[in-house]
């Protein structure tokens, strides 16, 4: 069983499903088959990844399930493998995708087959990003994800979809080309692009600063950090619900993962130098975008800005370079993956019924759609980090580590939590409570079975990991511990 290429199967399965969909006819009668095929593929992938988690050995920080094949003779190897840091992201990806596929029921009306193909191919690329152990392979997956996402926003998006799709594509492409320069330079500096070997060899200190900045330019756009976050609200607002979910839950996590895996792992000395920069940008992201979120009238835009703020916490936590900080960041990313996905779905639910995302359209719907209101409240509270939800665990750990490292930064970031609570609660109040502003709202029906199912699927882990984050922490603990050990050795050694 150990020889079974489980990671490659995880990467390939969704693509094979997509290929299968490609060969089924595109007529209307097929839409159910198409949906079940894609659902089936993504579910198989999910169970495979859970099985991977079970097989995963938590007691070591070595990379596991490594596959290493020559790809371009004497230059690049196709190398994949996982450690404690990457496995959670893979499971998040395989968990969110089937939910996305179920959710298309209500939102995607035309070209369903093409949409599902795009989603499945996207899943392939995302899993590839999280388990590739070669910089070129990583770049390949990282960039390739742009194509399906561009199409998802552009074809199935809202009225300003073209503008948003272009902005999304060009921003991220601009960020990543510098990373490509850095990757090739690393090849010429160190003679390899294999991440494991690079960990052992280390990269010459005199190059680290520039390389770090090149990687940073790519990850900062993708995270997104202030001031290059502007593509995110546009992309989120215009993308169809399932697209927003993918974007928020998985795409944004690639950058956080990249920071941990590459910025900290490969360029420790430079990371140490640039930590103040990251702190500065993170704090601005937390405070500034929270205030912007407060002013939004569009629900999706509000949640998009809150994502920027949450990712600010993540980058802050990563660059505290402490056990709690990085653990908190990863948990925050997982939690944000679940919660923001759920919030976008919640917006999607009311949008499908009323065709408006404006907050002022709603009000007083609590008595009309009670089930929805309960679940929406749960996720609102999770987003603002109420104890007992997964949002709390992440933020708490990050702030704890931040206090140890830099008191001022931690205080300002904590203030961000308050503003976060303000805009989320105010959003909830305006949408759900209050007077019934619009008589059309009376026609709204409560969650149907599939919506209830999706939201419950997201609610359960949100609550579970809020009360008992142990399984997550156990998985990542050793890997992060060793990462920090190596990091400190490199920094003090020089």
């Amino acid at each position, binding site marked *: 069983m150990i020889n079974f290429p489980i990671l490659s199967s995880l990467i390939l399965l969704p693509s094979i499903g997509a290929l299968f969909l490609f060969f089924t006819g595109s007529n209307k009668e097929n839409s159910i088959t198409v949906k079940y095929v894609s659902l089936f593929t993504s579910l198989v992938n999910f169970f495979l990844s859970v099985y991977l988690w079970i097989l995963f050995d938590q007691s070591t920080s070595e990379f596991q399930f490594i596959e290493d094949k020559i790809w371009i003779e004497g230059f690049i190897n196709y190398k994949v493998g996982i450690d404690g840091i990457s496995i959670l992201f893979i499971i998040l990806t395989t968990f969110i995708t089937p939910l996305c596929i179920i959710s298309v029921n209500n939102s995607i009306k035309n070209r369903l087959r093409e949409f599902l193909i795009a989603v499945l191919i996207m899943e392939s690329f995302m899993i590839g990003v999280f388990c590739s152990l070669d910089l070129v392979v990583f770049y*390949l997956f990282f960039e390739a994800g742009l194509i399906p996402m561009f199409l998802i926003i552009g074809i199935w998006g809202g009225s300003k979809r073209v503008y948003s799709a272009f902005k999304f594509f060009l921003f991220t492409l601009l960020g990543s*080309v510098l990373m490509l320069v850095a990757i090739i330079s690393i090849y010429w500096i160190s003679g390899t692009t294999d991440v494991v070997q690079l960990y052992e060899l280390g990269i010459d200190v005199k190059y680290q600063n520039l390389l770090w900045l090149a990687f940073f330019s790519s990850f900062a756009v993708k995270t997104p950090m202030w001031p290059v976050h502007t593509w995110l609200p546009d992309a989120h607002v215009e993308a169809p619900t399932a697209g927003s979910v993918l974007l928020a839950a998985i795409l944004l996590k690639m950058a956080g993962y990249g920071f941990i895996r590459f910025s900290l792992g490969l360029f420790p000395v430079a990371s140490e130098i640039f930590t103040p920069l990251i702190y500065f940008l993170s704090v601005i992201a937390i405070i500034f975008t929270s205030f912007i979120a407060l002013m939004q009238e569009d629900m999706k835009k509000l949640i998009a800005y809150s994502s920027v703020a949450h990712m600010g916490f993540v980058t802050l936590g990563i660059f505290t370079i402490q056990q709690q900080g990085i653990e908190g960041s990863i948990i925050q990313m997982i939690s944000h993956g679940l919660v923001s996905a759920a919030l976008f779905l919640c917006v999607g639910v009311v949008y499908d019924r009323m065709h408006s995302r404006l907050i002022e359209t709603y009000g007083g719907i609590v008595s009309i759609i009670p089930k929805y209101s309960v679940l929406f409240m749960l996720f609102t509270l999770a987003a603002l980090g109420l104890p007992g939800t997964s949002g709390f665990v992440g933020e708490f750990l990050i702030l704890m580590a931040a206090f140890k490292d830099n008191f001022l930064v931690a205080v300002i970031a904590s203030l961000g939590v308050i503003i976060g609570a303000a805009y989320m609660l105010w959003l909830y109040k305006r949408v759900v409570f209050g007077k019934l502003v619009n008589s059309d709202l009376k026609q709204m029906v409560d969650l149907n079975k599939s919506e209830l199912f999706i939201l419950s699927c997201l609610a359960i882990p949100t609550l579970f990991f809020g009360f008992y984050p142990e399984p997550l922490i156990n998985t990542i603990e050793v890997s992060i511990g060793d990462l920090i050990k190596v990091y400190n050795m490199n920094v003090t050694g020089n």
Partner: protein
Amino acid sequence: MLNLELVFPEIFLSLSIMFLLILGVFKKDSSKLVQNISLIVLLITAVITFNETISNEKTLLFNGSIIIDYLASFMKIVTLLAAFLVLVISSNYLRTFKIFKIEYPILILSSVLGMMVMISSNDLIVFYMGLELQSLALYVLATFNRDQLKSSEAGLKYFVLSALSSGLLLYGCSLIYGFTGSTNFNLIANQLNSNEYSLTFGIVFILVGLSFKISAVPFHMWAPDVYEGSPTSVTLFFTMVPKIAALTVFIRFLYVPFLNLIDQWQMILIFLSIASMLFGAIAAIGQTNIKRLIAYSSIGHVGYALAGLATGSNDGIQSSIIYITIYILMNLGLFSFLLMMKRNNKYYENIDDLSGLSKNHPLLSLSLLVILFSLAGIPPLAGFFAKFYIFKSVLEQSMYFLAIVGLLSTVIAAFYYLRIIKIIYFDKEKEKFDMDHSLWLKFSLTVSTLLILIYFIFPSQLIEVISRINIIG
């Protein structure tokens, strides 16, 4: 005379051209026959060329004025196959415009002959001879649709400007001959040391002439007009085939006689490369005609190929050759599609005519999507790898500025490729296109799309072939 069999492909091709001319004149309505025979001739020539590659490492012929090596054989085979495909997919187009005549295949064959001479040349005079043969054939091809004003204009423009550039080129040749006393590349190389600076004049003039032929900025002015005015099938030929020969001459001219003068010409090449990449990307944004857009995009692509040449290393040369090979593949796909853009027997050339294509022709637009993303250089498609090798060799020489400008211009270029994709996928649909295309057209579109798509699975194969080309040392 011992190795005459090595130039057998050229001899065979020229004899066939003469035979076809006679056949065409004496037999009435023989255009189809001539076309078919030319196709077979191209294939046979390719096979002969391939055969001689296997046994032969590097041979000089005719007092060293002709060279047969891997570079020559590889480029010749690519030229021949590209010409074959151009010929085979253009017949429907030509019929529609009632210009399906015997001259068309014969002119293509003669320009191919000229290119083969260019590719094998190891001497300034032989090189010039080949260049003129191919250019003369191309002038006529550009005006091939002679009843149309634009086509005649294109041909005339091309003729005047190309003649000018040939003049400059000859002037450069004469300067070099004057300073070194020889036209042979190897002999020139031996005479370098004494008069380095004066030779630079000659090099500059010849580089200007060559840049004209591959339409590198700032000698690109003719390209958009000629590309737009010529019949589409000829534009296809222009964008692909002459570039191969000109690039080969570029490689040979810079790396055989003048490798030691790299300090003198490297800056020129870097400038040409950066200017072409940036200009190609920016100027293409405003275009509405696809052929014009392709002209600008091809200017940009030439810039990338030149970036590889600017490195002064074998890796760089190889990456340029890989680039141009993959570029030809992508262009072939793009033009196969362009030749399908007709409604009711009328061909369309505007980008807006593609509007909403994805609703009417999902498969067609999918392959166009693949080709366009590949041209933009997005992984995992073949176009990405082409750029990747270029930047790999550029960064090996620590030319960071060139690499960063090159990559930034890919972002700018991505914009106009995305614009086409936007029009295909996001906009409202128009009338359907006719779908009565020839089998060859479908074949070339499908094959090029598939090759672009699955290139990432077998990236080593092409490199393996090309890594046998070692010009330096």
